[in-house]
């Protein structure tokens, strides 16, 4: 059975339809990426899947006891709230100090425990969020535009970390992004969303699909191929205007 199964979801607010007849499912261990332009309902879909929103039509079924590690798009911590990295990792459930430091290492930010969350750089902050998500020992890791505010080498490194984490934990990964070339290459399956599902399939299939090219232009197809072939190289310095 799928970890999460969404069937014929409709969602809107203020008379505006955000999602229409969206069906998708997520299986064990796969990396799925949802791409789409701004305002296409990507974050809304993710929030429906974790249960923060209720669909107006259709159903979302989560496997019983499903553990979700959620990395939000942007976590604003009110400056009036003092909190160290160590304390943050212990929310909502206390974890052993050894597990916390292991999770920080896995996420690529070892030894940050005593830092205040407010003093972290953007990249460190996202990695601490990732470490916290890992600590839940998740069945599925969900990332909502997790590399917003990172530069290209930074976000490429972040996604390599995700792939490594998936290897370690064997969890499924569901990502939302508009950074097509970086994200798609790491995915097993890509869902192209624009209020409804335009197309889906392997990265190659989606990037060749007419609906996808209509949304994002044709330039990204080449960029993807480039990435696929130069897997071990540092691809952070390429510029793909069509993807911005």
């Amino acid at each position, binding site marked *: 059975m799928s970890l999460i199964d969404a069937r014929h979801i409709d969602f809107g*607010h*203020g008379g505006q339809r955000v999602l229409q007849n969206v069906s998708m499912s997520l299986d064990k261990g796969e990396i799925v990426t949802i791409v789409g332009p701004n305002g296409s309902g990507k974050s809304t879909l993710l*929030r429906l899947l*974790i*249960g*923060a929103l209720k669909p107006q039509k259709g159903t979302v079924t989560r496997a019983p006891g499903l553990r*979700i*590690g*959620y990395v*939000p798009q942007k*976590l*604003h*911590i*009110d400056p*009036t*709230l*003092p*909190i*160290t990295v160590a*304390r*943050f990792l212990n*929310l*909502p*459930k*206390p974890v052993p100090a050894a597990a916390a430091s292991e999770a920080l290492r896995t996420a690529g930010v070892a030894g940050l425990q005593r830092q*205040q969350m407010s003093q972290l750089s953007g990249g460190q902050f996202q990695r601490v969020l990732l470490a916290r998500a890992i600590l*839940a020992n998740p069945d599925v890791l*969900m990332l909502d535009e997790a590399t917003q505010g990172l530069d290209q080498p930074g976000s490429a490194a972040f996604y390599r970390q995700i792939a490594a984490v998936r290897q370690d934990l064997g969890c499924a990964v569901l990502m939302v992004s508009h950074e097509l070339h970086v994200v798609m290459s790491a995915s097993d399956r890509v869902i192209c969303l624009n209020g409804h599902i335009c197309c889906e399939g392997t990265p190659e299939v989606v990037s060749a699909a007419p609906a996808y090219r209509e949304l994002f232009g044709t330039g990204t197809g080449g960029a993807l191929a480039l990435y696929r072939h130069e897997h071990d190289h540092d691809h952070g310095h390429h510029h793909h205007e069509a993807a911005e």
Partner: protein
Amino acid sequence: MLDDFLVRAALAAVGTAVAAGLLGCFVVWRRMAYFGDATAHAAVLGVAMALLFGTSITLGVAVVALCMAVLIHALTGQGVAVDTILGVLAHGALALGLVAVTLVPGQRIDLDAYLFGDVLSVTRSDLAVIWGGGALLMGVLWWHWSAMLTATLNPDLAHAAGINPRRQQLILTVLVAAVVAVAIKVVGALLITALLIIPAASARGFASTPERMAFFAMAIGALSALGGLRLALHFDTQVGPSIICVAVFIFALSMIGRHLPKLQV
């Protein structure tokens, strides 16, 4: 010992300030100050209702504050611009309360006692309500601490961990109403929000974790209560405002303390 009105006043003030200091941290973190104000202002309406129906003041205030709190809680879920509604409700309830109090037949009512508090007249049963209510509040916060903190950080993070952030908010809402009911005797309806937010805001500078901030806020609350009582006795001023004055003084010191290192650079 409890026969001495000063001892009773000190115990009442400290008990209220400690409970308010703890809860005040969440009020500050979640930016609920205006919400606290609205609930506190509604307390005056609660006083009027209690006098009209001949029930205890604490009960009247608790019921009206709770109704106000739940009403606001329901409205905030609807995507309405909340600050305007809070303003309407807060001052509407205050005005209605002030009018209603003068309509109560019979005795002339000393409104000052409800607006600014009258801690020197607390009875043993008032003390029982304050310390019982305070203990209950601490128990509830202790029980929900992690869930509440997670929901405060980010509602979606809470959802993903199986915590319902709306429920946590409702609990906080009810607790604020309870503190209002308890604190009206000590600092009065107009200054309750001050007792909630000033100790917490002062504690921010010294604390590296939420728990330490809560602890410091409680300590600063207690210090303000005792200092304010002392001040009031010495200068023969009203106790409630004196407590807030001491709290503000500590807040000013904490701000100076926070910025000193920067001045030295």
